[in-house]
């Protein structure tokens, strides 16, 4: 008769045989599980994962939404539009950066700041301001959906 094996061997057996092990354990491991509460609960938990009760997650509403999103994001039209927008976007970025630098440098020179120093200061200020603004916008746009709400017990409910 095989000797009862330990918790570690049970875990190894579960890992090796996967779902099959959760359903049916070898006799010697079964004996160990009968006498070990932790392992009994672990087998129960793994069986729950394998069985995973609950209703369907892929609902007709989700199907509709996904198909609609995919239709909107059809590959070729969006890509073509992106390329068309590239020249005006580049021009806008150039003007948007160059104009404030020029205005600020001119203003600084009027205050008797040396020319090189004025241009460097103006460029530094404008670039750092725009980088900071872009960073903030990126963070806000990509924030998680629930970020504005305090995390309550209900909103933290786990829905595996």
């Amino acid at each position, binding site marked *: 008769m095989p000797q009862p094996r330990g918790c570690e061997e049970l875990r190894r057996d579960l890992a090796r045989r996967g779902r099959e092990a959760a359903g049916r354990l070898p006799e010697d491991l079964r004996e160990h599980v009968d006498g070990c509460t932790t392992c009994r609960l672990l087998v129960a938990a793994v069986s729950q994962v394998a069985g*995973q009760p609950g209703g369907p997650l892929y609902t007709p509403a989700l199907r509709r*939404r996904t198909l609609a999103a995919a239709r909107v994001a059809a590959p070729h039209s969006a890509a073509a539009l992106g390329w068309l927008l590239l020249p005006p976007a580049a021009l806008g970025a150039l003007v948007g950066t160059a104009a404030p630098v020029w205005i600020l440098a001119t203003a600084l020179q009027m205050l008797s700041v040396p020319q090189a120093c004025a241009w460097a200061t103006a460029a530094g200020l404008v670039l750092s301001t725009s980088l900071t603004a872009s960073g903030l916008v990126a963070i806000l746009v990509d924030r998680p959906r629930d970020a504005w709400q305090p995390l309550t017990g209900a909103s933290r409910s*786990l829905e595996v």
Partner: protein
Amino acid sequence: MTTPVPRTRTEAPTEPELVTGLQRGEPDSLASLLDLHGESLMRYLLSLVLRRDEAEDIFQETWVRVLRQAHRADPARPFAPWLFRVARNLAFDHLRWRRRWRLLVGGEAPAEVGDPSGRPTTPEILASADLARRLLAGLGPKLREVVHLRFWGDCSYEEIAAIAGVPVGTVKSRLNRALAQMGRGLKRLEVSHASAEGL
């Protein structure tokens, strides 16, 4: 150039045919693939992000990306590993953002199993039907992922490795770590149960 032959047979198209259809931009192929993999993909995403609304968002984004990158799919190979890989990348990007956002504005991470933070009491958890859910919530997403794919998805080590983009040895060690961590979580619960009963 060959003329497409009208489909006269009645049986459903095979997965390679659907992937080829997807590459041609046929909406029916997308819908069929969606129906084929929708449930398992949603369960996989939910096992990673633990919130249904977020899992649904990532699910949608996954299919949009699949449509855009359909030319990269190889109809001769199984579609699911590629699909799950796309979904996984999006889910982990999302989890990274969620963590950064929490660091930036403060907020709580999901409580671990055995954490005395106003959650149901230990006996309730030990007796509950969603013991697995609570145990998995105490694991990191990479460990949750292997447990879900191995026990729910019934995937082999090789299939999990293909989805996670890691060697088979890493999958094995993650699975062992996950089960050991679940065991430790259960032990903590038992200890707190025993001390609550004054044993």
